[in-house]
């Protein structure tokens, strides 16, 4: 009986059985940021313990980075305290700290791959659920809470319950104007936000195989929104090409040996899965959430559901979402005006995300609507510098997009929509308060769909707005 990549990696990293269904798992890489790190360090010191493996721990500041292009890092005393705490603790412990003051920081899920910290076959943990991004490399990447951050700092291990594996095969080919973000939103719409409980998702199929590493990271970053514990893509030549030459990648004779090992991690042909799901990638349209859960989404040229045929729980959820969003059941999304357009986040804050937007803006010659505040936040300083080098920043700014300091910003409320503003966002979360304002309304979509909304001032199909013709069908509603 064969094994999945998940089984192989977890077996290799398991220290011992702790009983009660729990296992002690070694963490090959611990990513620390200032939102959970300082609390973890404080709890560690309270127990009189030190950091077990500073050489396998990487810290950066991202979550509380200030709003605005010229914001002062220390304008908020709480922000200053977190940044100071993290830098002091990391430095004292011998942990590599990627500092914002040295323009070396970023969203930890953007920074870690670009610096070459993540490799296939590793276990990666972080006090943030979007650590799922690193599953794109064939790593088992697990989100942990602040208390578990302490445990990993102290032991470089974490307590886990083993997951079964669901094989999510996405066949076919994405149409023009359809992206990895649309793919994961579609997967969530089809499978729901609960069905992943107790599972790891193995993404495969022609659509996934054709994706770049940055697209695979987008796909995997939102796996936590499916309810699954983690998600991954089996590494292939695309993975190896991305890794080759990165700072921590093997060199010299170690490189071919590493590639051979990475290839051996692929799930066996007779691996046992909890179940298999096949999704037709040809049917995936540009998507947008319309509600307060990542599962409440549809084709961007579709409509919110009606209450017809809905059970009582579904009806209540629909009405609750419509109440917050100011929508009616059955309302066409094309009637929804937007106030803010946000490009960025650990889901879609990488170079190719901004390049795609710049490309459609440049080709179309369209500018941001005067009624829309369009904001781009690079996922890291390295992304920021690359956008400048490629001329992408210029294209965005000329089209009316304000390019801000790298970080998480809207995703964690360090910059926020005002009042009940409607935000077309390339981030991962659409729940109430997810962008820092209790009243603001967030519609999650791909970067180019955000771009379409920013130029038209309303939700719109990017294929029509930017005349994106390519393979694939005409729009189809998910439900």
């Amino acid at each position: 009986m064969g094994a999945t990549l998940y089984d192989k990696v977890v077996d290799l990293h398991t220290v011992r059985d702790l009983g009660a269904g729990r296992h002690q798992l070694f963490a090959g890489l611990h990513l620390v940021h200032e939102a959970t790190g300082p609390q973890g360090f404080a709890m560690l010191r309270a127990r009189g313990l030190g950091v077990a493996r500073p050489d396998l721990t990487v810290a950066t500041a991202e979550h509380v980075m200030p709003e605005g292009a010229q914001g002062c890092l220390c304008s908020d005393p709480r922000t200053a305290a977190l940044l100071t705490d993290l830098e002091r603790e990391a430095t004292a412990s011998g942990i590599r700290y990627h500092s914002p003051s040295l323009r070396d920081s970023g969203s930890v899920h953007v920074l870690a791959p670009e610096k070459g910290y993540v490799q296939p076959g590793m276990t990666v943990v972080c006090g943030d659920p979007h650590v799922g991004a690193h599953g794109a490399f064939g790593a088992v990447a697990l989100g942990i809470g602040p208390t578990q951050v302490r445990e990993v700092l102290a032991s470089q291990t974490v307590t886990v319950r083993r997951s079964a594996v669901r094989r999510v095969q996405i066949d076919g080919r994405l149409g023009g104007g359809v992206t990895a973000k649309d793919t994961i939103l579609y997967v969530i719409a089809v499978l729901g936000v609960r069905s992943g409980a107790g599972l790891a998702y193995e993404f495969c199929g022609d659509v996934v195989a054709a994706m770049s590493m940055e697209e695979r990271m987008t796909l995997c970053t939102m796996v936590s929104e499916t309810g699954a514990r983690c998600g991954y893509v089996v590494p292939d030549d695309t993975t190896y090409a991305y890794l080759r030459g990165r700072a921590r990648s093997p060199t010299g004779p170690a490189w071919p040996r590493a590639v051979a090992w990475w290839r051996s991690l692929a799930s066996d042909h007779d691996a046992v899965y909890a179940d298999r799901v096949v999704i037709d990638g040809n049917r995936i349209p540009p998507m947008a959430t319309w509600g307060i859960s990542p599962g409440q989404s549809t084709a961007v040229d579709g409509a919110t559901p009606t209450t017809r045929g809905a059970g009582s729980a579904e009806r209540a959820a629909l009405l609750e979402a419509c109440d917050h969003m100011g929508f009616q059941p059955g309302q066409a999304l094309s009637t929804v005006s937007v106030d803010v357009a946000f490009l960025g986040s650990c889901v879609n804050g990488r170079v190719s995300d901004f390049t795609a937007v710049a490309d459609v803006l440049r080709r179309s010659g369209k500018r941001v609507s005067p009624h829309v505040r369009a904001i781009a936040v690079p996922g890291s300083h390295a992304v920021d510098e690359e956008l400048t080098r490629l001329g992408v920043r210029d294209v965005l700014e000329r089209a009316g997009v304000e390019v801000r300091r790298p970080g998480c910003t809207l995703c964690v409320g360090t910059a926020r929509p005002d009042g009940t503003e409607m935000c077309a966002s390339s981030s991962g979360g659409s729940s109430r308060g997810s962008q820092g304002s209790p009243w603001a309304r967030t519609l999650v979509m791909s970067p180019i769909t955000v771009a379409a909304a920013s130029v038209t001032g309303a939700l719109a199909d990017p294929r029509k707005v930017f005349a994106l013709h390519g393979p694939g069908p005409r729009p189809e509603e998910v439900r």
Partner: protein
Amino acid sequence: MNAPSGPVRRITGAGLVLGGDDVETNRILPTRFARHPTADVLGRCAFADDRLRATAAGAVHPFEDPRHAGASTLVTGRNFGCGPHGHAALALRHWGVRAIAGAGFGEAFRDDCTAIGLPCVELDVADAAELAELVTAEPRRELVVDLDRATLRAGTWSRPAGIPAAARSVFVDGRWEVLTELVADPGEIVTVTDRLPYLAAFGYASRPLSVLCAGPMAQMRDDDTGP
């Protein structure tokens, strides 16, 4: 928060109801509050945005309702604590929640709760709804979450409170606080690191990080042997 320690066998006290399904961790603790350097203030921020909305609508949120002051068991719907953020469990614990009874939980959230000694017990969907009605009608009614017997009682009302036997033993035996176990035998951990190819053979951690990460982008090298 009085940090719990040792076995957690029975939680006795009043309940409070947080209705609805799929309550995300972002709602339990809005993400902007994650910037607090210490966890002890998080309790005051639990459901902060929902509280604001309730006040604006002229209603009283359960976490502000004086009838529920001092409540210890939170009664919820399906898939409570789904979604992203790990501070949510701490916020509830610091507010004073000592057990959560609902019709299913987000997996990572339940793990976070376990790590701080906060048991999540699972009720049948109909039982969870019935319990919510009982608590709403009589807020001071005493609830007993009995992990030994895997039941939840409210006077004569008693239902199975599902918690896998293995998970139950973690609380009952006081092994939910795992740090001591994790650091108990460094030798076992070394055995694992010795067999990890990227540590043992590919030089992943053998070079000083200050050299590895000198530039803003990874330094490309042209002396590698190709795959």
